[in-house]
């Protein structure tokens, strides 16, 4: 079962903060600002998967779907719904 929005958001916050090595603010653009590069976005997905204990299928995704915390929450919910 997919965790609620707050838990997803916390997981996204912790994962992104771990990668950029500082607390990530809500409005920060992670990908388009260059804070997270194309290799790190894969690590971001892996970390979120581990924290939430879910699998995120990437077939219909692009890095920009992980551009900020709100988008990450939406993306995780969307792929989870599509998969269920």
């Amino acid at each position, binding site marked *: 079962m997919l965790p609620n929005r707050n838990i997803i958001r916390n997981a996204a916050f912790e994962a992104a903060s771990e990668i950029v*090595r500082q607390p990530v603010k809500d409005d920060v653009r992670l990908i388009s600002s*260059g804070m997270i*590069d*194309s*290799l790190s*976005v*894969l*690590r971001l*997905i*892996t970390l979120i998967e581990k924290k939430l204990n879910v699998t995120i299928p*990437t*077939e*219909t*995704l*692009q*890095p*920009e779907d992980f551009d900020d915390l709100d988008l990450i929450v939406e993306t995780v919910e969307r792929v989870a719904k599509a998969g269920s």
Partner: protein
Amino acid sequence: MRFDSSLYLIFLAVAVTVFWLIPARLRCIFVLVASAAFYAASSLFLISVPIAVAGLLYLFSRKIVAVPDNGKFWVRMGIGILVAQLLMFKYSGFLLQNVEQVVTAARHLNRCEKFGVPLGISFFTFEAISYLVDVRQKRIGRVSFIDLCIFMLFWPSVVAGPILRAREIVPQLRFRTNFEAHFIFGGLDRIIWGLVQKNVLANTLGVWVDRGFSARAMTPSTFDSWLLAVAFALQIYFDFAAYSSIAIGAARLLGITIPENFRQPYHAATPAEFWSRWHMSLSRWIRDYLFFPISARYKSAALPLYLSLIGVMGLVGLWHGAGWTFVVWGLIHGILLVLYRVYGTVAQSQAGSFTKAPREVWRVLTLVGVLAAWVPFRASTLAKAFSFWSRMFMHFVAGTSYGMTAYVFTAAAVLFCIIEPWLAGKFSAADMKLGTHGLNWGRIVLRPVAYCLGLLLFMIFDQQSAQFIYSKF
């Protein structure tokens, strides 16, 4: 029709004037006709290729939207056809050279070479692939055939990008925006700056670069090898940035915004940062439509991930040209990216033990790596590239065949690159101060004077006229 030719500048002036004079409902058709005329001026027969690609996109996107469950099949089929036509037109000679004894079919492919290579094929093929994938991923809906034709043929960007995405450009193709003076000023600023960059900086450097890298040239001394590597790094940057600036400016004249391609790339502190500043529209495309789909499968396994990155960069090299020298250029960048990644992983696992020094070391390594990688990109053969590297890094040979002018001009161009961000900031601040609306002295006096000076420089340095490097890709 080259962007720095008088014919193009006349075409642009007439097209933009007519565009703003006709009713808004006719602008879409006018842009299509003007784009087709621009394309046909270069290759009348081959205009059928981008139009056929637009037709394929139209049919396949309808199939994808109508039956989403079969979407993957139609996307794969579409990408297969698009890649096949790219291979046929651009790479058949290269394939034939390398697999002649194995694949006799390549002989038939080579027949396509006699037709020539359709203008901008590398660019519109990537744009077409991104459209099919985006339709499948529901990032854009179905688009009309006319809009797809404009998307494929849009004259400001058809020759060498920036690589557009349908979801960013198609919503602007209604051309309903009312005329605003800042479209013209903004567009002219970019076009005239592009013309100056091309003629004054890129073409001047190109004279020494062409001489040094020509097939008959002797292997240069150590000083000259470094001079030529630096001069070519600057030439290709100013040349492609100039082209991109003119393309962005021409689109701006029509009220259309297309993506930027450069952000002072030689200021990058890491190999990854270099690719977020160099040919940004290509980097974004590679990241979203090639690297991410391939590497997401291996996201937890380091070795396959690194190998896929190096492989993808090799393909990026091949995209630039059908030759092993380009592949080697891409592989060097792939290896640099992996080395930086491995360093990052080690540094993170030993947090606190690394000081600021490694970042400055990486800045130097990135610059040296990028410079060394430009050598095979420009050299006619790998043997020639190795002889340059040998003189640059291993065997010191004194002396120089170039006069003081070449060294001083290259040093001045380096200095310009160093202060470019500061200059851009100053110009931007001054522009904001003058204001973008209404009549003011900046608009009435300063800009026309700056434009005249720019055009004067463009004409003075027009002696060494040379083709835009990226228009060959």
